[in-house]
């Protein structure tokens, strides 16, 4: 197993919506979730090829564009200064009326014809350190060609890939200050927060090449609760660019490869 480090530079505030959640509370993960990173890297492959992102409104079936199963993106985590900024906004409840442009309104507004207060969180971070694992070194080398490309990242915001490290052989070891989420049930120390993380459930079809415009054979998500540790606590994992990536996430994400085809 090999690992490669990604240095991701956001150019704006970012929102990675935590689901399940409330429609009135748009909360963000304080990091780039693994599934989001997968789709974002797919966009960078397109950018490199000069392809435009597909129109996802076409047709009725949701389509997924993610990295092939041979890649294992572990997400990306803020390094340096970061914080979550929470704002309050008024927003329309429904979009099927024209109450807000009426010159004269009489009586009760139609259903959904009023404003509702909601909150929105933005992740403000200087830089993210991400990691992608793969069995073969040459798969990871392809990511080095994506340096300098950028794409929409998350629900709101943009980031570009500033630098990519060299692929390294992963050496499992014990660490005492995990940089990444660990399984909630296995962690006894202090935490920064608890988050549902997801992996893709793949269908039977073969993965398309990441640079191709074809959708991935994803048929859904499978989730598990993780916590982001605060401070010290023993965990199994590996070191990359001086940070300790916990193995829990790899085990969770890797489990998908056992089902479906292992390309």
């Amino acid at each position: 197993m090999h690992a490669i480090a990604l240095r991701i530079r956001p150019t704006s505030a970012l929102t990675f919506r935590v689901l399940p959640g409330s429609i009135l509370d748009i909360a963000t993960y304080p990091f780039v979730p693994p599934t989001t990173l997968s789709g974002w890297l797919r966009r960078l492959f397109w950018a490199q090829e000069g392809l435009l992102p597909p129109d996802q409104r076409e047709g009725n079936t949701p389509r997924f564009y993610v990295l092939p199963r041979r890649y294992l993106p572990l997400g990306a985590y803020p390094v340096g200064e970061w914080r979550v900024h929470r704002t309050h906004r008024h927003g329309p409840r429904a979009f099927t009326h024209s109450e807000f442009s009426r010159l004269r309104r009489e009586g009760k507004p139609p259903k959904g014809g009023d404003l509702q207060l909601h909150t929105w969180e933005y992740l403000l971070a200087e830089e993210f350190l991400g990691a992608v694992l793969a069995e073969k070194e040459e798969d990871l080398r392809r990511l080095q060609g994506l340096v300098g490309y950028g794409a929409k990242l998350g629900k709101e915001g943009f980031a570009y890939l500033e630098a990519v490290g060299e692929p390294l052989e992963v050496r499992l070891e014990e660490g005492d200050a995990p940089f990444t989420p660990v399984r909630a049930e296995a962690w006894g120390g202090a935490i920064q927060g608890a988050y549902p993380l997801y992996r893709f459930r793949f269908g039977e079809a073969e993965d398309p090449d990441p640079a191709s415009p074809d959708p991935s054979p994803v048929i859904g998500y499978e989730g598990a609760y993780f916590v982001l540790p605060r401070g010290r606590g023993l965990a199994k994992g590996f070191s990359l660019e001086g940070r300790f990536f916990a193995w829990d996430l790899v085990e969770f994400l890797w489990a998908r490869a056992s089902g479906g085809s292992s390309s």
Partner: protein
Amino acid sequence: MASGLTPKGEALYHWDIYALLYAPQEVYFGHETQVNVNLIETVSLPDGSERVYLSPTKRRGVERRALLYAPVERNGQHLYLTDLLNCGIPNTCGRENCPVCRVYGALVTERRGNTERTTFIGRLTHGGGVSIPAWQPLEKQRAMHPSDLRRESGEEPQPFRRQYGAPGLLFPVYNHVLAASEREFRAVAYAFLASLPRLGAGNPKGLDLYEDETFGPYLVLDRYKAPLGRRVVLPPTLKDPGEALAEFRRRAEDAPEGEALFQRHRGRAALEALRRLAKAFVEEDLPALASAS
């Protein structure tokens, strides 16, 4: 209708009134009272000057009242329009056929009898009011004298101080109406002209259109579908009255001639047009309202 208004068979236009008012005497626009000093409302400009301010919200209030107190006759009974319509301030009626609410807007916050909660967005908006030149407010000593012929102790005159805006101050003011028929605009024309003698708090009251021989009254009236003419708006940084008048004239000239989508009246012609509309409001619209109610 998505707008909430029933369409009528009359053409809709945007309307603008631009005017330069002057104070023929001292003026007072109430701001706040400190201990025994009645302050006049002013605004501070980035250049450090403090200007007497004829707040557009105050003009709006005076205009709306001018309409509410318009005399109207129904079956030999002489009424104010406010009594005929049962529409006042702040208890606006918000009815679609109310000539006041139609342009000034209305808010009925709760259901009263068979009147539903109503929001009526006013299409008439007011601007301007920063005086030229940068003359400081004057502070004067006044006193309220009891009218007693024989005075006992404790009934001495009450002294107070009041600030005034100086005579001769110029106030550029603007009224804009969004997409309204000529019939709807008649009420605006009436209110604009009828409000002039009543601007100001307490006494003395009243402003008037500045006038000179070449331009006539400093008044511009636009009726348009497309915004093709220069808005006759003066930058608040202008301090010199002569420059302000020249700028008003320059902008007033900056409009297309013979253009179907934009019609501009200036000076005397603008005043005549407003008078014609105000007259139609009194002669046609008020009796029609009286016979309909």
